[in-house]
């Protein structure tokens, strides 16, 4: 094997310029793909992290039919205590769940005593909410990020509403809401924090304590609009999610129909489509890489066979088995792949390091100055490297096969 690789290396060095140009194409292709995967992947991970860790959580559970009419925040589709009790047992006993938080979601009117506007509010248990969406306190543009998000009698309002209503920290405001029976109630709150907005559902909601929400809505029992769940390992969301979904949808009513429904973050946020687009673009760029490697290696190998017909005739005449002739030319393609891959990986890692040192910033929706910090998983590097090597060998296959099947007499006569 080393004999064959050694001869292959020397044959490649025979046409240095052509070999270098082919290597350059492979390297450019690899760098483009790896840098794109690193940058786009990091952007995707960061945005998913922002959305799941500060608003949505990893997965959510609602009463059946709630999500279909979530825009109107229907209070008549809240989970009832009997459902909650069963669900709590399931969630507490599930080892894949790191934390979960109940929310009461409702729409109301926000008044600063001079002006009134609408607001969407989440009634939360601050400790559970912080454990489930740990980046939520970090979104506080004003207010103590290290204290509990809300205490009884406090409200956290979105930044746009604060600006529009000229509300400041410490202001007393009134929230008026209609409960599911049509009864209107109001309650005063002190503005405890102002939240930066974030793209996606719930990104411009206000927060109050869950007990205040129940009081405002005059709930006679402990109802909940949604349960937000944080998994211990987000990378296992498909497996853990399926298991939780099975457990949740296994909770049935008297008629034997599921009472609850399960959704992961991709079913709740439009950013999932952007993430899919990024994956699609990554696939497209991989296809471009495959094409570059395929065409460039095949071109160089076809030329190599054409220019060495007499040499092939000679080695065939002196008894070199066809399989070994095949190996000799496949090895040349493989060597191109190996050298191109190693150089491509080295340059890509250097590029990723340089971007991390440079720390360029970008904006996403309402979020400004996000720092681009590309990272690439060893698995992605290995996958691309394997892809290039396999394609390089495949591209060499036809010329190598042709060389191995060559008639020695015809080849020796070739001028």
């Amino acid at each position, binding site marked *: 094997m080393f004999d064959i690789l050694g001869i292959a290396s020397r044959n490649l060095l025979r046409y240095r310029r052509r070999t270098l140009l082919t290597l350059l194409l492979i390297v450019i292709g690899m760098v483009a793909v790896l840098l794109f995967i690193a940058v786009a992947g990091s952007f995707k991970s960061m945005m998913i992290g922002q959305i799941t860790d500060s608003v949505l959580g990893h997965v959510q559970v609602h009463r059946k039919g709630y999500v279909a009419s979530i825009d109107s925040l229907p209070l008549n589709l809240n989970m009832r205590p009997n459902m909650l009790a069963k669900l709590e047992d399931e969630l507490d006993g599930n080892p894949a769940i790191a934390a979960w938080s109940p929310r009461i979601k409702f729409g109301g009117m926000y008044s600063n005593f001079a002006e009134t506007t609408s607001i969407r509010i989440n009634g939360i248990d601050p400790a559970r909410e912080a454990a489930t969406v740990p980046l939520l306190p970090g979104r506080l543009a004003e207010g103590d990020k290290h204290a509990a998000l809300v205490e009884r009698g406090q409200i956290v309002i979105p930044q746009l509403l604060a600006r529009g209503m000229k509300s400041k920290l410490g202001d007393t405001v009134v929230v008026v809401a209609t409960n599911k029976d049509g009864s209107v109630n109001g309650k005063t709150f002190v503005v405890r924090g102002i939240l930066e907005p974030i793209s996606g559902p719930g990104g411009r909601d206000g927060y109050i304590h869950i007990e205040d929400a129940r009081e405002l809505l005059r709930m006679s029992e402990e109802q909940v609009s949604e349960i937000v769940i944080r998994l211990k390992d987000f990378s296992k969301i498909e497996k853990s999610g399926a298991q939780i979904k099975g457990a949740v949808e296994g909770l049935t009513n008297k008629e034997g129909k599921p009472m609850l429904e399960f959704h992961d973050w991709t079913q709740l946020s439009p950013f999932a489509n952007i993430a899919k687009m990024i994956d699609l673009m990554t696939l497209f760029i991989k296809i471009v890489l495959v094409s570059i490697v395929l065409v460039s290696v095949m071109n160089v190998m076809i030329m190599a066979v054409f220019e060495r017909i007499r040499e092939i005739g000679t080695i065939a*005449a*002196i008894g*070199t088995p066809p399989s070994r002739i095949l190996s000799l030319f496949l090895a040349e393609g493989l060597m191109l792949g190996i050298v191109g891959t190693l150089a491509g990986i080295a340059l890509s890692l250097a590029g990723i390091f340089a971007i991390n040192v440079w720390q360029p910033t970008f904006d996403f929706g309402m979020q400004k100055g996000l720092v681009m910090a590309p990272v690439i998983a060893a698995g992605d590097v290995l996958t691309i490297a394997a892809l290039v090597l396999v394609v390089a060998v495949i591209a060499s296959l036809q010329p190598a096969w042709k060389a191995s099947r060559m008639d020695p007499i015809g080849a020796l006569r070739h001028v």
Partner: protein
Amino acid sequence: MSLVSAQHLTKTYRAGDIDVPAIKGIDFAIEPASFVAFVGPSGSGKSTLLNMIGCLDHPTSGTLKVLDTDIATLDRKAAARFRGEHIGFVFQDFNLIPVLTVFENIEYPLRMVQEWPAAKRREQVLRMLEAVGMADQADKRPDQISGGQKQRVAVARALVSNPKLVLADEPTANLDHDTAYRILELMKKMRDEFKTTFVFSTHDAKIMGEAESTFILEDGRLIQGGSHV
């Protein structure tokens, strides 16, 4: 027993719709350790005959046995194996592999065809380098040595795996007169030393005089053969 024997051997090529006979029913035998020339003008069938003896081509009809093997029975792989084990080749244009040194060119059949162990391989290559007088050129590439030296290397490569038979198609055609004689002398010396049968083709009347046995071909027929001329 003859090393090579042919009976009613014919070879016909197909050119479009026309059959072109290259060898027209010849019989001959070549004895072991002989030094034989096939002589004739261009198109007489010398190369075709050497190609068949070298298992590079199959007869159209008749029988050709090399080392008691009917070469018509060998498929592509078996023919390659047979050549690697029993036959050495010397080419008119030397056909050394340009990316390999002199040492590596001679070593090639042992390394890539027969897979000898490294120590045994080195010993044999050094022996061949000494035998052809190229020991001091071992590390040079083919483009760094003369035509005569290239043909010496080619002879060493043909002999390195101890074949029973070496076929040389016009081995002196690209060499000057003195060098051509020296190569033939070398081939004879090798024949004496290794008891290898040398069969070569030539159209040069002076060169054919160096052969101990000469077969004269004309238009695909053997018009004289087997005796000293």
